């Protein structure tokens, strides 16, 4: 099963002049090398992915039976709150920022990010956020229990009476994570605008860079709203102001506007880089240029723009008047147009290609199929009458896990396998990779598909107990969940063993076209001895034209 194509590839004979440091201690230091920071982000966030996964296992364990019998209700509520928070703020965001850090300078032919020290500071805030979140389990009263969106007034209820409580810590941690993201966004946007190699016009940028660019622009306009909402909630909670507290005349629905004005677009901050990963992977393993490159590039920006005017779809049933429900229904549905263009482009890229089903391609294909499914349930949710029925039910939980697990996490796995040789200088084991893929693909569907019939039947989200008639599908979902939990084991095993003693990787094991594949694996410090001069569009598969004027291919 191990069929790694290294045919036709020459290992670079001479070592790069400035050797990449292979000292593991570097990963625990305040390094300003974007590649070290990228890997720091990836490893840290994967650790928290496992933590969030353990919380998920506790929840699925509880939901095996209709009664609330495995853990107390307060514990269950803490579990789903921290699961959601950890998965979003400590897994998907930082891991994608990790890839962006690692790849963007390489892909645009730069030696580092625009502000390397700012970059390192932004990273080191992530472990701080993580420690705060985990520390909140040990304060009296336990961690936050109001769900990852922390709607007041529930989030303002503080039965312990202590000033230091889980909800306060939660808000602080989210604010720090927001500051870190703003720093990252400024850095990425500057780097992409200012530091592209000569000849790399916007329409010669790889689509991954387009995806990161669009996503980071969302961060710039969205995060201020979330931060404002979080600070006001913090004031209500600690010093007793009354922005959102209805008992003192505040308006809790205002918080929902602040929150979703950012947190809907935040979904695109996550998914745009994943779309971009698809756009990088499909051409390589289909050996065709990306179909409709320019349209796909522009559609990322379009998605970013439209995503700014859809937030009320989370609040259809929240006292929102009819006309507003209908306007936001239309804007929400419009997002499916640029998204549809992308899906079409990927399918057309694969069509008629010469497919190689290596692990990254398998993960990307599986993720694409599950994304199409998620997109369809998403359109259903955007329709007001349907949402009136299924809002806050398991239908929604099923939908967003198809996005967050089926698409984002699977897409991240595809990216990890694809760039693993580049990052570590070693090959992973293809057969373990395939085992991982099949466990994850089956597990995801077994876990999240049953949530749709449950939601249509009316089972609510965030419940620790439920009516007995919902048990059948819940048991299936839980078994799928445990399978998913197990599926990470072959992955961890593969990564650790391959990193330590995998076969040495050549510079370009997939015969891919892109600047990052022109430097050795792992790339030297400062990436390029000579800054490349770009002379053609990316993805020139089958066209046999050179990408740069000065680097050997």
């Amino acid at each position: 099963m191990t069929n790694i194509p290294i045919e036709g590839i020459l290992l670079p004979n001479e070592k790069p002049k400035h050797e990449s440091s292979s000292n593991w201690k570097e990963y625990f230091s305040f390094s300003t090398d974007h590649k070290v920071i990228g890997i720091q982000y990836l490893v840290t966030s994967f650790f928290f992915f496992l933590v969030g996964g353990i919380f998920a296992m506790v929840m699925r364990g509880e939901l095996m039976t209709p009664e609330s019998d495995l853990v107390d209700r307060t514990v269950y509520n803490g579990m789903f709150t921290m699961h959601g928070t950890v998965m979003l703020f400590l897994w998907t965001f930082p891991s994608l920022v990790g890839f962006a850090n690692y790849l963007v300078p390489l892909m645009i032919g730069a030696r580092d990010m625009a502000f390397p020290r700012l970059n390192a500071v932004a990273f080191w805030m992530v472990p701080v956020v993580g420690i705060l979140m985990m520390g909140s389990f040990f304060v009296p009263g336990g961690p936050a229990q109001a769900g990852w969106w922390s709607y007041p007034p529930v989030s303002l209820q503080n039965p312990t009476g202590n000033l230091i409580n889980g909800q306060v810590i939660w808000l602080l941690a989210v604010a720090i994570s927001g500051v870190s993201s703003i720093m990252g966004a400024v850095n990425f946007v500057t780097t992409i605008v200012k530091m592209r190699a000569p000849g790399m016009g916007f329409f010669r940028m790889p689509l991954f860079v387009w995806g990161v660019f669009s996503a980071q622009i969302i961060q710039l306009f969205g995060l201020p709203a979330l931060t404002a909402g979080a600070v006001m909630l913090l004031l209500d909670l600690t010093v007793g102001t009354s922005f959102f507290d209805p008992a003192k005349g505040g308006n809790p629905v205002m918080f929902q506007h602040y929150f979703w004005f950012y947190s809907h677009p935040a979904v695109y901050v996550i998914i745009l880089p994943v779309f971009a990963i698809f756009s990088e992977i499909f051409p390589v393993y289909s050996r065709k240029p990306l179909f409709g490159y320019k349209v796909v590039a522009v559609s990322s920006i379009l998605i970013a723009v439209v995503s700014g005017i859809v937030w009320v779809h989370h609040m259809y049933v929240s006292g929102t008047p009819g006309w507003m429900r209908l306007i936001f229904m239309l804007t929400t549905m419009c997002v499916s147009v640029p998204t549809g263009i992308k899906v079409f482009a990927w399918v057309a890229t694969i069509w008629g290609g010469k497919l190689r089903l290596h692990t990254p391609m398998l993960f990307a294909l599986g993720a694409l199929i599950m994304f199409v499914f998620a997109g369809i349930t998403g359109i259903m949710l955007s329709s007001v009458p349907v949402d009136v029925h299924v809002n806050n039910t398991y239908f929604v939980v099923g939908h967003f896990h198809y996005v967050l697990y089926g698409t984002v996490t699977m897409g991240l796995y595809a990216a990890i396998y694809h760039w693993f040789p580049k990052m570590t200088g070693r090959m992973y084991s293809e057969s373990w990779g395939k085992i991982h893929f099949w466990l994850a693909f089956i597990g995801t569907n077994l876990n999240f598909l049953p949530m749709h019939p449950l939601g249509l039947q009316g089972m609510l989200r965030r419940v620790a107990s439920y009516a007995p008639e919902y048990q059948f599908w819940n048991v299936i979902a839980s078994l799928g969940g445990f399978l998913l939990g197990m599926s990470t084991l072959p992955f961890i095993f593969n990564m650790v063993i391959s990193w330590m003693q995998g076969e040495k990787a050549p510079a370009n094991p997939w015969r891919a076209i892109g600047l990052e594949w022109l430097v050795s694996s792992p790339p030297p410090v400062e990436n390029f001895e000579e800054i490349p001069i770009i002379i053609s569009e990316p993805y020139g598969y089958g066209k046999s034209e050179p990408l740069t004027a000065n680097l050997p291919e």
Partner: protein
Amino acid sequence: MKIQKILNILTLLTGAIAVTFTSIWIGKQAYSWLPPQAAAESLLIDDLISFLVTLGAFIFLGVTSTLIYSVIFHRAVKDDFTDGPPIEGNVTLEVVWTAIPILLVFWIASYSYQVYEQMGIQGPSELVHLHNPLAMESAYAAPANALAEPVEKIDVLAKQWAWVFHYPERDITSTELHLPSDRRVRLALKSQDVLHGFYIPAFRLKQDIIPNHAIDFEFTPILAGQYRLTDSQYSGTYFATMQANVIVESPEDYQQWLAQAATQKPSPAKNQAASEYAQTSNQSVQTGWVTVPPAAPPLVNSPG
């Protein structure tokens, strides 16, 4: 060569027909995934869901079968390391593929809009706030030609964690929601503490309840039977227990129940949150975290 082409077209055609029929069949199945249709609104919503499932199944099957076809028939031959055809785009195709989703969006949006208008679930308190570009009046040409003006007005009070229903005409309270069938009902939703959500899956209807904010909510039950009302907006520790029975009965039975309840003295209702709370706070070893105590059990004429 010619035969090959005809064969290809035939394959494509058969595929398309198979996908079409399968999705129509799946769309029909959608009704069986849903609870009983106990309100007039549910008829409209279920048709919409079935329509969306049909369309969705068509798209999903179309895309996946194309991908699976590619995976099976477009694999690189072992040791063939050449590239595929360098096709970068096709303007006609791209235009068509942009136009199709746009048309679909307008189709889905206008159908959804019609359904929403016919439902007319938002009562007058919402209309007051409107500087309304889209008139919602037509909504009262209500579902199933039910009587336009609501006949039954009921106050609903949500609190952590109980539902209390008050029937102003007879001045009685209950923990069970009794409703006459085939009559338009208007609920006045109120919350005493946090956000709650009024949700009856068999009616397909849901509305958040917001403290300090009176919300009128209208619908028409049509099928006699017993259903569940649940809290749909997360409301704290005992959220999952915040449920109540909904009983839809003929107008005569409904009147009879009202009259009978009016003769009973108010007494404290049973409450799951309160009894669970009492139980856990008596345990010698605490296995959870402290919680907001449940509100006092409501006093009701008809504890259900």
